[in-house]
């Protein structure tokens, strides 16, 4: 088969994976090598669906022994199958990298033969790339659940980031849709990688030359909207993953109808829950950078996000006692809770107010989004000029701000599982 055909098939098979970041690690190139990484990550392009293209995201092979219902590569699906040779994949990576098309390689694979055999092939590819091609760019590798721990360890010594997909947000769903994968077989490598990273950090503290194990950390992803879990369940799981497994990122992937299985939503007329995925990402940021807890954003009585306003506005509207916040005296953590104030603008407020009392005009210069923030702030005790709204009016205004985004998709899809959930 031609390289062009292989690339097409194995890209098509890999595209549903959400993660494509190249962040978490600064490494300069050394003479005689090719490639560097930057902690902030780097997007090299954006595809027509608006997602960032940072890495060459392909499968080593789409030949699979498993039959997971939600997956396009399942054994029973009638698609063309192929596999890259390790050398083909290295040539592609280097050829793309030299032309600055990509920041590195995202290597994943269907399970071909056995988890061990698949992992060995991945190791061979990455070893060739790192040693023979002296590649110093970013490598994100998928750990294959069920592979021998020693193999996963070797994979982590070659890759910058490892990830194990948790696939679905609950054990029941996993048992139903991915009978070949048990929850423990996913969590075991996750724990192993966490411990490997911690051990490697400890060794690096003693010797600069100690081998680095997944220095850019670990991530995971789950499919949203294929199964009946609520946003609250998903967010609590996410929070648990950050806390227990020290993950760098949890990615959400709106389910795309790739199967006629009775266990999944019927593909006819199904719209992927993109807005729901968006709200989950917004909440994920609140967990990671804004000192929020999952239980503050949702609870058993309100298990799903309001599609009309973002989770931070939603929280603010439910907590009128917290507002208004006085810009000139509030703490950093308090400022972070104000809709329209972000991590950067909160820091800039702290810095700028040392020079004198801030006004609304000044806040605008600091990057505060006054359209949102004006309802929740005072400057030296004064509210924004001309602002006369009652509390129920605020919701209307905030919803109006989101209208351009909401108009693109009907929010009905969000209630898909409300009856069953």
């Amino acid at each position, binding site marked *: 088969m031609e390289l062009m055909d292989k*690339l097409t098939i194995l890209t098509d098979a890999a595209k549903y994976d959400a993660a494509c970041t190249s962040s978490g690690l600064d490494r300069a190139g050394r003479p005689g090598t090719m*490639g560097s990484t930057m902690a902030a990550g*780097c997007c090299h392009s954006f595809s*027509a*669906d608006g997602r960032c293209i940072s890495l060459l995201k392909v499968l080593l092979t789409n030949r699979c022994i498993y039959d997971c219902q939600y997956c396009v590569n399942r054994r029973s699906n009638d698609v063309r199958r192929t596999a890259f040779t390790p050398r083909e994949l290295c040539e592609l990576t280097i050829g793309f990298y030299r*032309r600055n098309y990509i920041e590195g390689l995202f290597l994943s694979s269907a399970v071909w033969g056995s988890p061990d055999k698949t992992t060995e092939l991945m190791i061979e590819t990455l070893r060739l790339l790192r040693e023979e091609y002296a590649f110093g760019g970013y490598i994100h590798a998928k750990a294959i659940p069920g592979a021998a721990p020693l193999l996963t360890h070797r994979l982590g010594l070659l890759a910058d980031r490892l990830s194990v997909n948790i696939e679905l947000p609950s054990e029941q769903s996993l048992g139903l849709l991915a009978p070949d994968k048990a929850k423990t077989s996913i969590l075991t490598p996750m724990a192993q990688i966490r411990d490997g990273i911690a051990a490697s950090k400890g060794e690096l503290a003693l010797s600069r030359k100690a081998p680095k194990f997944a220095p850019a950390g670990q991530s995971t992803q789950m499919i949203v909207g294929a199964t009946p879990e609520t946003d609250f369940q998903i967010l609590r799981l996410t929070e648990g993953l950050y806390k227990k497994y020290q993950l760098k990122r949890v990615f959400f992937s*709106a389910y795309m109808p790739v199967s006629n299985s009775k266990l999944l939503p019927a593909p006819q007329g199904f719209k992927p829950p993109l807005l729901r995925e968006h709200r989950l990402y917004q909440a994920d940021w609140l967990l990671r950078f804004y000192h929020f807890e999952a239980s503050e954003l949702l609870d058993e009585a309100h298990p799903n996000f309001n599609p009309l306003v973002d989770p931070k506005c939603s929280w603010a509207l439910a907590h009128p006692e917290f507002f208004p916040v006085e810009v000139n005296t509030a703490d950093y953590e308090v400022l972070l809770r104000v809709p329209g104030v972000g991590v950067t603008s909160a820091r800039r407020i702290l810095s700028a107010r040392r020079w004198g009392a801030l006004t609304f*005009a000044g806040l605008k210069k600091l990057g505060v989004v006054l359209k949102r923030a004006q309802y929740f702030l005072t400057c030296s005790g004064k509210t924004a000029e001309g602002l006369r709204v009652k509390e129920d009016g605020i919701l209307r205004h905030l919803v109006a701000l989101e209208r351009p985004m909401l108009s693109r998709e009907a929010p009905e899809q969000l209630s898909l599982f409300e009856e069953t959930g």
Partner: protein
Amino acid sequence: MGNYDMTGWPQVAYTYDGTFDGFLTCVYESYVHRERAAAFSAPGQAQISLYPGRPVETHPEHARRVRQSLPRRLSPRGARLVTYGFLTALPDREQSLYDFLALGFRRGPSVLHDLTDQRVFVLDRAVKHLTGEAHLLKGFIRFSDQSGVLVAEIEPKNRVLPLLRTHFCARYPSEAFVIYDRTHREALFYRPGEWAIVPLENFRAAGPDKSERDWRALWRRFYHTVSIEGRYNPRCRMTHMPKRYWGCMTEFQTEDTERPALPQRPE
């Protein structure tokens, strides 16, 4: 340079050679002669000014003295704001820098925190635009292999080459490459161990050979395949990757699109 209070200093319009050292010499002259810069003009940007004009000849030693005073008087961050500020696409770039310096020399490093002051804000915003554009271009630049040398062309609004230099030299330490800035007609040249940024009036990359065309075809195939049809969202793509970058990117060119020749620079 004892007294930094400019009230009462006469206003003048400086004409200089357009270089950073030239600008720093103007700053030096301003304080030595106790006069306030009210307008700047460099070659190619003829300006009519109400103020008495004064041509300033670039003096490397005077420029060096001002440059070395920046980290001390404004903090290293402030010095960076000034050097980067000179690379921005800010209209009235020199005047904005001069006004910021005048404020900074009077108030010291803490001036950087005063982000609501118009003079600080304008410069800070322009530098953010510059660093933002440089960051995007670190990803969006596309090289072609021309007999072993990597060649790229860009059309940035700001003069980003000095910011791209460190990144690409660290990324391709063993390669030889050229990045040509079509907007400002400058080129960054690198080969292992040395680099240079030089003005270059005209530059035209040779057409791709067979192997290069094959690589481009592979990339375009990957680019179109990796997109998920059911998530088609052109607006989101445009937000992250504004259209003005597309012209220089492989994925938006078809096999035989040739880059148009540079227009003649207006005299």
